[in-house]
């Protein structure tokens, strides 16, 4: 039963990773950049929900909705100010800017909320489920997280495959110049990608902080990087890949924390990243991209 509990916790954590990984994988697929600030958008989402719920006493549903709106606007603003002018710049410059944005968000939150971690009240009103005479208990967060993750994944896949905007995204990620010729507005498409990624990140933040309760200005950074690892693991640019990579990574992390070492959990996650990149750099579901001269 112990193993089963760990496994379920792993899948739950992995579902959160895969929701966050969606933001990375979409942005990387379309704008060809690692949005380092994505993890910090999650942190911002967490603080907005925290402020609205705990300080202003708002309903959890509306708090999450408000966080989604703010994160969407934030994501689009970041893209407009920091990344859009650097479309043609070398990737080193874009990466450094992204790191700068990530630090900016962290330090703004630090100045507003202080360094000590806040206790985040769960936004999920579902009670824990007890099975096998209480030997296996599944938390309400797990019960909500896993199905919600699947719904988001299917919805997003549907949106990208069927809607006009979604197909525009595929076109831009395939070939930017050709997409322009076919009448796709590249700037608008990239902005929409950031908007969707950030909105989903707000949902991810509600789920993650509900399950782990600790909220501090730096608590978005590590899950963000791990979600990126998940995106790479599953094959960057692929939405089902983000899901598979996220869940595998979550399970591996929880199991290695339980059975190998509590403190080395992060190290093991990073080791996986290195091994994946060396053995199969395109990830589980990724495609090989030919480098052009």
């Amino acid at each position, binding site marked *: 039963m112990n193993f089963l509990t760990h496994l379920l916790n792993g899948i739950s954590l992995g579902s959160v990773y895969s929701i966050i990984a969606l933001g990375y994988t979409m942005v*990387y697929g379309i704008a060809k*950049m*690692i949005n380092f600030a994505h993890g910090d958008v999650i942190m911002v989402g967490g603080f907005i929900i925290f402020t609205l719920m705990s300080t202003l006493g708002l309903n959890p549903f509306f708090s999450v909705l408000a966080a989604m709106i703010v994160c969407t606007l934030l994501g689009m603003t970041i893209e407009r100010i*920091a990344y859009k*002018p*650097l479309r*043609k*710049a*070398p*990737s*080193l*410059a*874009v*990466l*450094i*800017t992204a*790191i*700068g*944005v*990530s*630090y*900016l968000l*962290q*330090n*703004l939150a*630090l*100045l507003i909320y202080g360094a000590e971690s806040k206790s985040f009240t769960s936004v999920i009103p579902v009670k824990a489920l007890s099975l096998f005479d209480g030997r296996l208990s599944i938390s309400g967060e797990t019960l909500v997280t896993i199905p919600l993750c699947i719904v988001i994944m299917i919805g997003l896949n549907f949106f990208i495959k069927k809607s006009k905007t979604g197909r525009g995204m595929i076109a831009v990620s395939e070939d930017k110049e050709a997409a322009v010729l076919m009448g796709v507005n590249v700037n608008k498409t990239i902005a929409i990608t950031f908007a969707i990624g950030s909105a989903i990140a707000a949902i991810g933040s509600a789920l993650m902080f509900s399950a782990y309760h600790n909220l501090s200005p730096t608590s978005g*950074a590590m899950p963000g*990087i791990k979600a*990126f*690892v998940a995106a*790479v693991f599953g094959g960057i640019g692929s939405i089902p890949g983000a899901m598979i990579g996220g869940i595998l990574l979550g399970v591996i992390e929880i199991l290695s924390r339980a059975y190998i*070492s509590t*403190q*080395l959990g*992060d*190290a093991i996650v*990073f*080791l996986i*990243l*290195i091994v994946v*990149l*060396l053995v199969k*750099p395109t990830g589980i579901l990724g495609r090989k991209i030919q*480098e052009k*001269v």
Partner: protein
Amino acid sequence: MKSKMLKINKSARSSIITVGMILIAYIICQALIVTGNMSNLLQNLLVSMCYYAIMAVSLNLTVGFLGQLSLGHAGFMCLGAFAGAIFSKCTVNAIQNTFIRFTLAILLGAVVAGLFGIFIGTVVLRLRGDYLAIVTLAFGEIIKNVLNVLYIGYDSKGIHLSMKDAISLNLEDGGIVLVKGAQGISGTPRDATFTVSVILLLITYLIIVNLVNSRSGRAIMAIRDNSIAAESVGINITKYKILAFSISAALAGIAGVLYSHNIATVQSSKFGYNLSIMILVFVVLGGMGNLRGSIISAVLLTLLPEYLRFLRDYRMLIYSIVLIVMMLYNWAPACVAWRNKLSSNLAAMLKKSKKEEL
């Protein structure tokens, strides 16, 4: 005399200026210390300014000259710090001469960090741009996490290692625990003096200047500018990448040894991602590929927060804005156009004033 001066090429002149600057700064500092005009606060900062400058210069080799973003530079510093501190603690009684002991510690720190640099470089450098950055970050975090749970002790039987706690080291009575996991190493002899630090900074600087101006250095910069073109003219990309990366790592190891011999306790948690980013800020602000700039920005950005106390809370905020603004200033089309316009306006003004003079 004048014609001789002109014969020295541009890069040599630039490095003479830098070395001269460091020496003058050193002499001024020493004069202030001897005459008792330097505050304790500043005296405590002198060594740290040097190791941050070494870190910045060595990271500049990877970022500025090789063109690869490394986010795990603090990891190498951490390795150097631990290797040097363990060595000094073990030999503090065996080798009485401070100079010899510290020199050996520095060499050991550099070798350990350099070997890890070769290892990580071999693993990592086949990856491109973004992936490389994230993997160096991963390696840095792995080094930090592993050292955070590592316990090392020694007794008459030799060295004991454990990843659990100090008791499971199974030391004999009288055995000494060297590294205490998250508490790190304490009681390292404080051998890092200002003079030694400045000498090491000069050595680091000269190593990199010589490398950059050599055949290997030109190969490294060719890889940065266009790796495919460099490969097609016969440059062995992997070799030069690993060369630059491991030298950069070894020099970071030296900075680490200085760090651990300047401070009472060395904890691996200090060498996280944050430190790597701080060093990156020094490099970006000083100018990528500009060694003198790295030294100046490392010194200034270590000094300023201490003097501008009110800015202390905003330090990291300002760093982040520096990163964004520098990148936008350098690369955003609007900024580039504005800069070009400004410089052409200036040129026109100069021309005009010259004409008027005539």
